[in-house]
């Protein structure tokens, strides 16, 4: 006889802390394996193993192998790890803040702002004053500026007398998304064919533009944000009972809100700026981890970062290999895998969690 929803819920669950720690260890191992794969697998015939052997023996690698390993695969791997960790952790942070398993960095305007900034760069590029000076960095800079601008705007709207209302932020975020979509639409309208293709590709996301110049800026920002976010675990746990209860338990709720928003805007803003629009990682990864080892944010944040990194690098390996020597945009892969997976999660949990 199939278990009913109540039976499933009434099952006794032991202390999940131990399980969560075990999950962390497993994910660290997985991360290592995926990283090695990310360096070893690729369209070019460069072999990681023979390169390591040669290097250990003091031999010089061919220029081609050097380029492939050190200037293509390695920056790409690091970008994938950082962006994956950033997106997944941001999802977990916002779901905790909004007390909603469906929350996503989109909600605080990051994606809408970044997209608008990128479209401005693509369509208006030549016409804007500092385009020449920034060169290839122009688009990421504008995308990041858009992400931050949108988040700050939403924060100001939602914060009165030193208190931020997450409900207001959610509603204002919807309005802002609609506005940026309209403005983006205007830009697309005046865009020409080549620009429209560029916009489409940007929206689908890709790690193929990864290089050391971008990493030098992106890595510290993402790393610092993720480390700072770990301090929010206990606060977000308390806030699951409501802001009032959290305050009674001694949590500085406004500090938690502000730090969460800053971390998400920084980490996601930078990730989207350098790799375009990549969806579903922020929703699916924390959700899966909650199912496995519970919603305790003290472990969820760390594990989300690890699993998000693994997922994105794996998706990137697929992107590079499936139609080699051409590449698929990575956003397509995360959508193809993430969409149905997310639906499956929803269907399973419908009766149990009353979503």
């Amino acid at each position: 006889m199939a278990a009913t929803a109540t039976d499933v819920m009434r099952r006794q669950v032991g202390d999940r802390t131990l399980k969560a720690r075990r999950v962390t260890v497993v994910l660290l191992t997985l991360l290592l394996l995926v990283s090695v794969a990310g360096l070893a697998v690729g369209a070019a015939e460069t072999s990681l193993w023979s390169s390591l052997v040669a290097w250990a023996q003091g031999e010089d690698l061919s220029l081609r192998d050097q380029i492939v390993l050190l200037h293509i695969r390695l920056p790409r791997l690091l970008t994938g790890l950082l962006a994956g960790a950033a997106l997944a952790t941001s999802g977990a942070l916002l779901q905790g803040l909004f007390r909603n398993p469906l929350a996503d960095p989109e909600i605080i305007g990051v994606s809408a702002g970044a997209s608008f900034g990128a479209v401005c760069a693509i369509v208006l590029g030549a016409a804007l004053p500092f385009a020449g000076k920034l060169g290839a960095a122009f688009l990421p800079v504008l995308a990041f500026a858009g992400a931050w601008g949108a988040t700050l705007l939403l924060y100001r709207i939602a914060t009165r007398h030193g208190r931020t209302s997450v409900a207001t932020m959610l509603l204002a975020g919807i309005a802002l998304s609609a506005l940026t979509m309209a403005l983006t639409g205007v830009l697309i309208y005046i865009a020409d064919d080549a620009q429209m293709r560029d916009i489409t590709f940007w929206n689908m996301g890709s790690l193929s533009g990864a290089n050391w110049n971008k990493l030098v800026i992106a890595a510290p920002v993402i790393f610092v944000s993720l480390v700072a976010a770990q301090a929010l675990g206990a606060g977000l746990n308390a806030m699951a009972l409501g802001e009032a209860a959290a305050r009674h338990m001694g949590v500085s709720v406004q500090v938690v809100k502000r730090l969460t928003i800053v971390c998400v805007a920084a980490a996601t803003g930078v990730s989207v700026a350098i790799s375009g629009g990549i969806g579903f990682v922020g929703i699916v990864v924390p959700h899966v981890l909650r199912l496995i080892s519970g919603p305790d944010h003290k472990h969820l944040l760390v594990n989300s970062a690890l699993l998000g990194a693994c997922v994105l690098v794996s998706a990137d390996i697929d992107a590079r290999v499936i139609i080699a020597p051409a590449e698929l945009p990575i956003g397509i892969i995360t959508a193809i895998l993430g969409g149905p997976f997310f639906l499956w999660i929803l269907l399973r949990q419908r009766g149990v969690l009353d979503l």
Partner: protein
Amino acid sequence: MNQMSSLCRLQAAMAAALLALFSFGVLEATAETVPTRIVSVGGSVTEIVYALGQEHRLVARDTTSNYPVEARSLPDVGYVRRLSPEGLLSVAPDMILAEEGAGPPETFEVLANSGLPIVTVPMGYDLPAVQSKIRAVSEALGVADAGEELALQVTADVEEAIRAAGLRDQSVLFVLSMQGGRIMAAGGDTAAQGVLELAGAKNAISGFDGYKLVSDEAVLTAAPDVILMMQSHRRGAVSPGDVLAHPAIAATPAGRNQAVLQMDGMLLLGFSVRTGQAVSELAAGLAAADS
């Protein structure tokens, strides 16, 4: 006499040996520097490579390179504006031959750092541009003489086609696509306008560059005599009937006369080896539409 002939023979032999060595040396040298694993990026560039008879040196091409048909059997490295560095390197090329506008810039930066020669072929939409393209490609391939020959032949074809076409009193609107009822048309600085002008007609619409979405009013004001479109074999692609049925177009002279002309895209817009053929076919089509 005997001494003289032996000396001569010896000298001749030495000269021959030297000449042989020298030639061998030269051949060796050129063999080392001549690229034989070339990636061709851009349909018009690939077409020129085949026309020069150098296709045996190609190892890959991009998505837009599908003429001649044989080109399609080469591995496809992706869309011309979105190439990935590792994908390109995976075919172990010793040269990239790319049309202007291929990208993204980061990819070409990485490739340049790897010491890979990258030759950019300039684009343009008139006869001198076609000549430059052919010369650039043939120089890169080390067959400048054959390139010069091809350029002359193509020039002759084009000039003949222009002469035969004459000047036409027709304004033509080139429709690239129709998305959700909105028309994407060719403005200035496009291959479409370029080839129309070669065929003696003029672009019905002006005031912008590139292919852009145009409003219904703009189409009505342009009042084209003929609609020009690309042929598409995809299911669900916009058909001439769909375009003529568009309310703005139906109200133009082209719409009222059902004057729509379809041509193969790469032929029409490639500005490559077959430009002469494109111009004469286009002129013939326009003439037919006029009657």
